[in-house]
């Protein structure tokens, strides 16, 4: 690795999406200062779309990693950027209207959203553990601020403080894991660590401790079972569309990063690691779904359901390399339906406390479009065909069965039945609940209407033609990039 300033130009082209997003972020900061507030959502959205396009533009890649093995630019990396940017775009559809109705014109949200997505991209595409950590910190800081955004509200303060303290703790575990891996091998670069795998197994106690701490850090970020406690409180205190973003974008990035690291270390050969992940998956699925049944508050219900969905994704992760496509596919579908569901809850609520299920009685008659859209997202989350949620669950179960994890798949299917109960219960409340004058009166403005429409169409489309996403995923995974770039 001889450093040559001339390389930097090439490398900069390779990470163009990140640099472009950075420029957009800086521009948003200046716009904020110059009080050009009204066009900030538009610029942020266009910036994210632009970064996504830059990522998949056909280009000759001379190496798989840029900046001397720091960040992945080949393989599946461009698609990760597209998915993460899309999660931001979906969120932006719901934000301006929500902030306006709450009477809290905080325009920094868009800037922070861009920076958060830069962090997520870095973490998901990192091929050096240093970048993993820097990316994690970048988006974590942005998310802490999101949780505490409505600083005058007590619930928001609670959410911010809880998320910050526990998140900092989890980062510490992750960092200890990384430093032990460095201590074992002498490298922070994932490829170098993988090439020196024999050094890892020389000292099994230290290896399992380090990788265990590493996994703990990530399990916290994805709110898997033993580290899920913060989830309901934080999601219910966070501004609703941002809670949707928190539950999807950051989890997607964390799962991709965890999956990449584990697969590079070839983790399926260590039964202990697979068992730990499988246990977390089983407990998350059971706990999330069972506790969600008893929830009376919509945001808490969605929070518990998000714990359960984490379980399903972990199930795919246990399948190792074969399940990785399913994991990313699941997270993308989950991103669409969860941001949609959180966005709709955000449309319906006037104050942060206004999310009780009882208040939604009779919405099916009063706000038919709204109720129909919500039902669609809920059906999809329950995994009922022909919606996309079914396809994503199917992929994950197939991957689990294919790798011999039959028990996991069976538990997954059983808990899906429990899940279907509470999702459909909410639909029943909306359509058959007796209430002459529902207190909530959701109204779409054009951005939210457009957003909901787009997400609903995507759910239907991907439910019927899942290969629209699966095909590119498989192709990028196998490395035939140019063929796919033409198809886009």
């Amino acid at each position, binding site marked *: 690795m001889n450093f040559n300033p001339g390389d930097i130009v090439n490398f900069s082209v390779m990470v163009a999406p990140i640099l472009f997003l950075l420029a957009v972020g800086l521009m948003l900061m200046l716009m904020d200062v110059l009080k050009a507030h009204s066009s900030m959502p538009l610029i942020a959205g266009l910036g994210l779309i632009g970064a996504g396009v830059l990522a998949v533009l056909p280009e000759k890649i001379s190496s798989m990693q840029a900046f001397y093995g*720091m960040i992945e630019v080949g393989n599946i990396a461009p698609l990760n950027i597209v998915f993460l940017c899309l999660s931001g775009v979906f969120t932006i559809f719901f934000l301006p209207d929500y902030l306006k109705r709450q*009477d809290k014109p905080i325009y920094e949200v868009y800037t922070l959203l861009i*920076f958060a997505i830069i*962090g997520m991209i870095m973490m998901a595409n990192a091929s050096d553990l240093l970048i993993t950590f820097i990316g994690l910190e970048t988006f974590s800081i942005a998310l802490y601020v999101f949780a505490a955004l409505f600083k005058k509200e007590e619930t928001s303060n609670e959410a911010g403080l809880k998320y910050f303290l526990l998140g900092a703790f989890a980062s510490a575990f992750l960092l200890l894991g990384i430093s032990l891996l460095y201590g*074992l091998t002498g490298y922070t670069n994932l490829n170098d660590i993988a090439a020196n795998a024999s050094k890892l197994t020389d000292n099994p106690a230290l290896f399992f401790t380090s990788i265990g701490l590493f996994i703990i850090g990530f399990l916290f970020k994805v709110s898997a079972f033993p580290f899920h406690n913060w989830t309901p409180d934080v999601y219910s205190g966070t501004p609703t569309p941002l809670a949707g973003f928190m539950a999807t974008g950051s989890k997607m990035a964390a799962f991709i990063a965890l999956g990449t690291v584990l697969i590079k270390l070839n983790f399926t050969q260590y039964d202990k690691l697979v068992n730990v992940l499988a246990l977390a998956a089983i407990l998350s699925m059971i706990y999330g779904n069972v506790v969600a049944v008893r929830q009376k508050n919509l945001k808490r219900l969605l929070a518990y359901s998000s714990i359960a969905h984490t379980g399903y994704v972990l199930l795919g992760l246990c399948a190792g390399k074969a399940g990785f496509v399913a994991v990313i596919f699941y997270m993308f579908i989950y991103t669409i339906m969860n941001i949609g569901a959180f966005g709709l809850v955000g449309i319906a609520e006037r104050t942060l406390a206004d999310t009780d299920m009882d208040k939604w009685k009779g919405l099916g008659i009063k706000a038919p479009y709204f109720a129909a859209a919500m039902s669609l997202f809920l059906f999809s989350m329950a995994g009922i065909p022909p919606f996309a949620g079914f396809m994503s669950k199917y992929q994950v179960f197939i991957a689990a069965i294919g790798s011999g994890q039959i028990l996991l798949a069976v538990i997954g299917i059983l808990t899906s039945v429990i899940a279907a109960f509470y999702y459909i219960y909410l639909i029943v409340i909306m359509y058959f609940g007796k209430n002459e004058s529902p207190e909530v009166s959701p109204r779409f403005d054009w951005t939210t209407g457009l957003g909901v429409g787009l997400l609903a169409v995507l759910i239907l489309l991907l439910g019927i033609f899942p290969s629209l996403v699966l095909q590119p995923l498989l192709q990028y995974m196998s490395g035939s990039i140019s063929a796919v770039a033409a198809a886009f």
Partner: protein
Amino acid sequence: MTFDSIFQIAFFWFFAILGIAGGIGLITQKNPVMAALSLILNFFSIAGLYLSLQAEFLAVIQILVYAGAIMVLFLFVIMLLNMQDEQNQQFDVMKGLAFLLGLGFFGELLFVFNSFMGKSVSGAFPLGKVEPIGMQMMTNYLFPFEMISVVLLAALIGAIIIAKKHSYK
């Protein structure tokens, strides 16, 4: 024994004992300001331990950032919250459980680190002094270095949103 090795041992024990004294002071002092000052002692001796590992840059940063800047924030928070002297706290089961868990984790780490004792890491290059760090940061680790600025920007915006009085109505 040569003077060098005696000095090395003395150096380690001096800072190790000082650090533990600071740590004990931190949790036993009733006055929160005194506890914070004990923490400075602890930070300072950790900087000393870094020096004993030849990690000069880390030692300097430890003093500059932790013992200097971060401690100012600690003291500000104490004054901001107007904390009074700690009252006698009741012992409860959860605290006992947390203590036991912590002790277990400590024991586990001790066991693991012990298995690491005396082995040197091949491949790791000597990166304790300021010069190699500067060299690496500007060449092979250029990307993380530039991206640190994004972390700092995000923190900056967050600080303004949350702590500034009239950032929005």
